[in-house]
């Protein structure tokens, strides 16, 4: 049985959410059974993703051909260290969200199909991380898009419908761009398998079609990830969703765009040629600065945090702009740290809402006295996001900024440091307004925050602390992941050797 498990390890992080989504939909009229299936599915997914990470660490890159069709004709699924880590961290986040949901999701939202949609989103996210086929990546993006649209409009309020409309149009435009880029790429190379593309592209003469395709990939993923000139859909829609949905979106969705960007621009295209590097550097700097400035004016916790997603994406893209092994390792570290911290902050925002009944910082206050535990649990991710040592954000920022000074991009490092200062400003604003100051309202009725909300917040906080106080293993892992990611030959060899290993006849 263990043999069977390791041979099929790649499948389960994808198959379990899919089966759970189907099961939750099939159990439509029975909310209790859906709830149980959802939690069971999330636990199993986490176990499966840990098994996958384990087999990637011990045996190297894992490859699976779905349907047994040999590459480059069949659809390959590939897991290297980077994608396996992403799957693990998103499964952890999903489980935290599932536990949080038991206290936060109302009956109405369950009846709107929260569980099937949530599991469907996890299928899309894990599929996007694991696929080795560029067209298949597009399909997973669409799976994510349609489930996120369902999740945003869970309550069908006017604000949600409005936000969803903006989200839908911009993201549809992004996927159309993505599809166009795939069409152009296919026209030039005649293949869609990423490993095959990585073999063919270096030997292909540069052409206008290829340059245009590369730019379109950058734009399409940029819209998804929330880069500087294209991020406006994000703060216009994320804050309208119910808080748990916002948390999952904040943690995962933009990161899938970033992941796709890293995959395409390390495996298929070089950042070096075609003027992509200055463009990415410009995007990264703009994303950091405008995200943090956008947050400074806001008073709603969700909107502050939404803008901070953008500014943090800038730090991650900084890694791609410099593209040295050190910078890529920093980016991997940053993504892992950021998924945990950002989702945790949204969870805290949900807890603040539960305790005080509002997301507006001007109306909250006094939480320091009434729920000191929540205050401590807020401080961990908030200080980590701002990059205060010794929390995980400090090491993440240190790695990318160090890489930018070593990689002849000192101005990017300077921008990053400046933005870090402003992040402290936003986080201390939440701290002062929600926790420190006295409540401005006469009726000081603070509701208790249920344990099911505090538990995931505490667990994610513990991960942040663990990374912060013992960063060495994760740094080593990030360096390994970055090395594998940058080494195209290893990826190609893994995909094309799989035929013999699995004993599949082409």
């Amino acid at each position: 049985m263990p043999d069977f498990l390791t041979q099929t390890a790649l499948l389960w992080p994808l198959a379990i959410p899919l089966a759970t989504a189907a099961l939750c939909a099939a159990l439509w009229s029975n909310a209790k059974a859906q709830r149980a299936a959802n939690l069971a599915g999330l636990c199993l997914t986490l176990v499966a993703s840990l098994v996958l990470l384990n087999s990637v660490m011990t045996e190297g890159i894992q490859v699976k051909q779905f349907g047994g069709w040999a590459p480059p004709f069949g659809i390959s699924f590939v897991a290297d260290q980077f994608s396996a880590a992403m799957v693990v961290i998103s499964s952890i986040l999903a489980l935290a969200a599932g536990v949080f949901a038991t206290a936060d999701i109302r009956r109405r939202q369950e009846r709107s199909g929260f569980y099937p949609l949530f599991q469907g989103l996890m299928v899309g996210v894990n599929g996007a991380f694991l696929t080795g086929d560029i067209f298949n990546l597009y399909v997973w993006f669409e799976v994510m898009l349609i489930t996120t649209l369902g999740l945003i409009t869970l309550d069908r309020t006017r604000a949600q419908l409005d936000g969803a409309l903006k989200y839908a149009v911009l993201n549809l435009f992004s996927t159309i761009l993505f599809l166009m880029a795939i069409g152009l790429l296919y026209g030039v190379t005649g293949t869609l398998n990423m490993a095959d593309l990585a073999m063919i592209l270096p030997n292909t003469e540069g052409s206008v079609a290829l340059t245009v395709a590369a730019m379109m990939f950058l734009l399409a993923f940029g819209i998804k990830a929330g880069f500087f000139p294209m991020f406006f859909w994000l703060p216009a829609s994320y804050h309208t969703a119910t808080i748990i949905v916002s948390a999952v979106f904040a943690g995962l969705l933009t990161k899938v765009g970033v992941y796709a960007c890293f995959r395409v621009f390390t495996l298929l295209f070089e950042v070096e040629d075609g003027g992509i590097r200055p463009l990415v550097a410009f995007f990264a700097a703009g994303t950091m600065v405008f995200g943090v400035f956008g947050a400074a004016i806001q008073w709603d916790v969700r909107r502050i945090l939404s803008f901070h997603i953008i500014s943090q994406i800038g730090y991650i893209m900084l890694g791609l702009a410099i593209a040295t092994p050190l910078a890529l390792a920093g980016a991997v570290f940053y993504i892992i740290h950021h998924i945990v911290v950002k989702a945790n902050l949204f969870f805290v925002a949900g807890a603040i809402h539960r305790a005080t009944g509002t997301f507006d910082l001007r109306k909250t206050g006094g939480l320091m006295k009434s729920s000191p535990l929540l205050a401590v649990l807020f401080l961990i991710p908030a200080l980590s996001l701002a990059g205060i040592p010794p929390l995980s954000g400090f090491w993440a920022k240190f790695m990318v900024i160090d890489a930018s000074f070593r990689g002849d991009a000192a101005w990017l490092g300077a921008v990053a440091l400046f933005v870090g200062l402003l992040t402290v400003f936003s986080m201390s604003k939440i701290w002062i307004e929600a926790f420190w100051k006295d409540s401005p309202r006469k009726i000081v009725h603070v509701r208790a925050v249920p344990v099911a909300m505090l538990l995931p917040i505490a667990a994610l906080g513990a991960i942040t602390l663990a990374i912060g106080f013992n960063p060495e293993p994760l740094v080593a892992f990030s360096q390994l992941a970055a090395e594998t990611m940058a080494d195209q030959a290893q990826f190609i060899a893994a995909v094309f050797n799989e035929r013999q290993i699995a004993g599949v006849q082409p």
Partner: protein
Amino acid sequence: MSLVYALAIAVQMGCGVYLLLSRHVVRIVLGVVLLSAATNLLIFVAGGLVFTAPPVIVQGTQTLGAEAANPLPQALILTAIVIGFALVAFAAALVLKTYRAVGSVLTSGHTDAEALGSPFDAEATRNA
């Protein structure tokens, strides 16, 4: 031949983008429809335009004939059409629902998401 197709696709995309920039949400959805149709045509052209037999394996043989068309772009387009169909159906339903809830088909009338948690006191209190 390819040039004619390319021009046609360009015109269609231009129309799509023009509609997408409109203030009327139904036009925006139509713009998305036009754009995705143009993209499907683009994949079709990128796959090579030649007059050939359909890519169906003839009864009794195991492989495609030498003169058959490339089936992959067709499979891609089919997938893209199905996905596009679902998304456009959803977008249309969303537009209808938004119109019912907000009472406007103009994006200038859709201010609810922006007003929610607005940093400006006037907007925040108006919608409180």
